[in-house]
């Protein structure tokens, strides 16, 4: 892993820190890596980075040391003022941290409510599954200490579930009242079934994401996790670096971008407007039955096969264009092969 990749992953894992603290921590790790590279001339950058602890475990330490304060800092300071000195003194914090035991029991945190319209999930290694149902509920399971326990906060109809670094799984039931689901994960996998017309915005580092939606807008981003979308979302926007992408049944807007991840897209409607780009990933697009959209498919060095007129082939690349409508399909790759059928 390069220094940049390590820092990018660490940044994703340190989501729970405030912006200033997060960038400070990243800068400090970068400085540390530079010092190590300078001190160990026999090792290259990647060898130095490979000796570092995994970003997830570094993030877990930050969470244990700083996480609860980072997000609840103001509230805690408020409470300290109310209680006089309260837990603000160093001695109490030190004692508290000394008594966090290594041996932990399986724990569970659950709850639910009516009138929920927005759900925000923060997770690290926790797998998340969401199903549709009549009433909002959540269950978090894992082996956490008091310091790393999940935190659930409610602000009107908006719920925020911060799973913390030690949660293993989160199960959600989403009723029809939920219109938006936002999830930030690191390495945990997310399997989401959205209520009708609900939208989702999901970001993970290495976790896989699968999302079933109908009517809403689905935006999924992952570095190395695979992403799959099914159902009939109004719009799909997906971006990955190395993760593969599969979108089954897009009928409206579909925007897909990958670096090396392969892309499979099935369009469910002749009206669909698809824009697909990849550097080295292969792209396979299946048009809706009988559809003849306006088409542009081009690749610098990959093979292109699509219905339409071949414009060029050779060192300058391949390009196939076709006029049609009402839908529109544009595909571009650098070295990935393109197949449109």
């Amino acid at each position: 892993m390069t220094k940049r990749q390590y820092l990018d992953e660490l940044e994703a894992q340190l989501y729970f820190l405030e912006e200033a603290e997060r960038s400070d921590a990243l800068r400090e790790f970068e400085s540390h890596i530079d010092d190590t590279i300078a001190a160990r001339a026999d090792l290259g950058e990647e060898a130095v980075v490979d000796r570092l602890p995994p970003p997830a475990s570094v993030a877990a330490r930050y969470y244990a040391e700083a996480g609860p304060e980072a997000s609840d800092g103001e509230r805690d300071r408020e409470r300290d003022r109310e209680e006089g000195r309260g837990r603000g003194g160093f001695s109490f914090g030190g004692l508290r941290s000394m008594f966090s035991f290594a041996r932990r029991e399986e724990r569970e945190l659950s709850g639910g409510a009516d009138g929920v319209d927005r759900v925000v999930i923060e997770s690290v290694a926790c797998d998340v599954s969401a199903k549709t149902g009549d009433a909002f509920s959540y269950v978090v399971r894992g082996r956490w200490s008091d310091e790393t326990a999940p935190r659930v906060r409610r602000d009107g109809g908006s719920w925020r579930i911060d799973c913390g670094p030690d949660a293993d799984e989160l199960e959600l039931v989403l009723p029809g009242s939920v219109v938006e689901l936002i999830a930030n994960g690191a390495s945990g996998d997310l399997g989401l079934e959205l209520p009708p017309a609900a939208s989702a915005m999901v970001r993970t580092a290495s976790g896989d994401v699968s999302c079933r939606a109908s009517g809403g807008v689905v935006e999924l981003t992952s570095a190395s996790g695979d992403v799959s979308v099914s159902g009939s979302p109004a719009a799909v926007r997906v971006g990955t670096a190395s993760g593969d992408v599969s979108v089954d049944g897009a009928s409206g807007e579909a925007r897909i971008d990958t670096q090396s991840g392969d892309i499979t897209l099935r369009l469910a409607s002749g009206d669909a407007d698809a824009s697909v780009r990849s550097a080295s990933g292969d792209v396979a697009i299946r048009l809706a039955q009988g559809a003849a959209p306006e088409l542009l498919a081009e690749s610098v060095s990959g093979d292109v096969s699509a219905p339409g007129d071949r414009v060029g082939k050779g060192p300058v690349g391949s390009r196939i264009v076709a006029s049609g409508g009402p839908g529109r399909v544009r595909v571009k790759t650098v070295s990935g092969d393109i197949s449109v059928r």
Partner: protein
Amino acid sequence: MIEQADPGGELGRAVDKWRSQSRKGFLELCILACVRGAGRSYGFAMLERLSSAGLEVGEGSLYPLLTRLVREGMLEASWETPAEGHPRKYYRLSPLGSAFLERVGPERERDQRALEAILSGACPSGSEGGGEDKVDEDRDDSAARGGAEPV
């Protein structure tokens, strides 16, 4: 490895539990002392210094702990960019950290000497038989403190 000598895992769990209780405050103290000794220091140099003293600390433990010590007001931090090379985050002891170290450092040294005395069998009540466990514990404890206090 632990499983082989410790089929039920009890020893491993007990050791893990003890380490997590004992090491955290100890590490804080070592870091504060390390910064005081150097006047000001940065992460990589601290790790080198701790390592040369025989204490292996990982980056994943050090930096989050430094962040907390700054937040708790024990350390002060600032970025410095040398004429040549990359920026480094330097830490200095705050007045609070300095006072903390002056209070807690000697306490820790006293405890350490007491532990060494007990472990080496130099504790006078250690040779006494009879008495109930509770009484022995109390006696050990007071003897250890008594032995350590004059220092």
